[in-house]
């Protein structure tokens, strides 16, 4: 399709998304906005870094919390311990995401499958212990508290609505960026890596370089998620990146589905909803999260998004079928 015809469509989509974002605060309560919507947004952004790695490059990484933590911690350290201005720290923290991804990618560039999982798990767990034990830099197990979210054009991001708008715009921006990357030569190479490593190499690509690039790109989302989470919580501690968070990201991505990167938001929403409302009915919230996880894994290979896409394609088929029948009967009537 020529660019000229594509632009208005993209513009219309942006306007639609903008209107939807603008409407959300009016439609939901303050509690839902803060506890469900904003939380799902930053958890979804972080989850998208993993959804991208798995769905696009076939790399199952358990080290995305390490990237998330690197960005979050860096921002907190720069502001609270070094007195850097907040936006400079934010810029450094966002840039730290791809850099941390690059480092993790470089370490694990020759691994795949189970070995990649074990290696990245080691990196994720190492980062947790580093945060917990290296007091001079990380303040040990208490981490950083009392972090004030910045002001943006006079709006205080520690307030719900401004934080929501910024998170939503960040989510859209990260999705758009990933979608752009997926259309570049690197994006195609990532999918080649996912489907057939050896063959990719035989076409002249270095699988190491491809792996490192994929980790670097995905690190961007984990970094942005880490930054917003610190604004949201006003704090970051080793608990933000411990093994349960590693598993949480995996659950988010599995429930959502990796067939599209946006599935991470769906997964994040489900997990956040269960965490918040399940305890009204049971005190076994984690059991319920686990059960939901298992049910979706058993029902669909591509998570909730896979189920939704299946329903959509079934609906389209049914629509076409009925339209075909109607046209056939109209033809008969004419004849």
């Amino acid at each position, binding site marked *: 399709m020529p660019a000229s015809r594509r632009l208005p469509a993209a513009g219309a989509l942006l306007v639609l998304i903008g209107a939807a974002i603008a409407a959300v605060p009016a439609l939901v309560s303050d509690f839902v906005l803060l506890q469900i919507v904003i939380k799902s947004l930053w958890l979804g952004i972080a989850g998208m870094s993993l959804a991208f790695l798995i769905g696009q490059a076939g790399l199952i990484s358990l080290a995305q919390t390490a990237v998330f933590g690197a960005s979050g911690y860096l921002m907190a350290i720069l502001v609270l311990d070094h007195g850097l201005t907040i936006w400079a720290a934010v810029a450094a923290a966002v840039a730290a995401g791809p850099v941390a991804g690059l480092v993790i990618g470089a370490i694990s560039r020759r691994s795949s499958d189970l070995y990649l999982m074990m290696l990245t798990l080691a990196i994720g767990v190492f980062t947790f212990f580093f945060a917990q034990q290296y007091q001079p830099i990380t303040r040990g197990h208490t981490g950083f508290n009392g972090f004030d979210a910045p002001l943006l054009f006079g709006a205080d991001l520690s307030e719900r609505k401004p934080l929501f708008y910024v998170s939503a715009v960040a989510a859209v921006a990260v999705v758009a960026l990933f979608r752009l990357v997926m*259309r*570049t*030569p690197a994006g195609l190479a990532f*999918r080649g890596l996912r*489907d057939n490593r050896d063959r*990719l*190499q035989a*076409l*002249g*690509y270095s699988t190491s370089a491809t792996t490192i690039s994929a980790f670097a790109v995905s690190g961007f989302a984990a970094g942005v998620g880490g930054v917003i989470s610190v604004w949201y919580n006003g704090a970051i501690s080793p608990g933000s990146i411990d093994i349960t968070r590693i598993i949480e990201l995996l659950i988010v991505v599995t429930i959502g589905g990796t067939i599209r990167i946006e599935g991470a938001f769906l997964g994040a929403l489900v997990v956040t909803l269960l965490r918040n409302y399940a305890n009204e009915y049971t005190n076994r919230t984690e059991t319920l999260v686990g059960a939901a996880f298992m049910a979706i894994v058993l029902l669909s290979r591509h998570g909730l998004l896979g189920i939704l896409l299946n329903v959509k394609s079934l609906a389209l088929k049914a629509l076409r079928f009925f339209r075909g029948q109607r046209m056939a009967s109209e033809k008969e009537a004419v004849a």
Partner: protein
Amino acid sequence: MKATGTGQQTKATFLPLRVDKVSRSFGGLQAVDQVSFTLSVGERLAILGPNGAGKSTLFNLVCGDLAADSGRVYLRGEDVTGLPLHHRVRRGLARTYQTSSVFAGLTVGEHLMLAHRGPEKGRLSLWTRRAIQSEAADQARNLAEQVGLGSRFGVQGSELSHGELRQLEVAMALAAEPFIILLDEPAAGLSPAERERLTALLLSLQTSVAIVLVEHDMDVALTVADRVIVLESGRLIAEGNPEEIEADPLVRAVYLGEQHGQPQESAS
């Protein structure tokens, strides 16, 4: 096409491929033993031999999937003996696989674009101009037409039939615009009609591309090849044009006699 350092003129004076006394053993088995041969510009060379003669090992030594114990491999005069496959591909070599090896989730078009960019510097670029992108797509479409996959351009690798996968293998090799293509049993498992189409495709290729062909099917091999080398137990036992090879009593004894069974068929 890629020219490094001294430029096209000097490159052209070098042979596309020179294999000098390469050997490779696996444990006690000498799979390839001091084999030497050369390939000139645009030449079509078939490597024949009975099962276990060392054809595939020799093939993998040339493309870099296997490291040689001794001997050297030169591409356009450059010693590439120590280079792995993907570095040889960047220098203008392309290979296909005996068992089709494609990307299940990529369309035919994406396969060809991926293969086309393989030897280029921008293969992992995070930025492309739209014009370049659409030019690459056009090229891929033309190539798909050329190998008979035009109508399957948007179909994913996992949906292709065996015959189509074989065509895609050849198309991917061509997409990289190599100066030498190594084909590993391209006719394996094809129906007679598909085999005929493949032969026609190989015959229609530009003469600037040199081809090395390992092929079990004698008809395909002898139709396509200008020159044949025959291996037995890792050693080169005969070399010549297809007619000479067919007439060679030694070759008939070790290969045609055993494998083909019907000499009148191969003589036709």
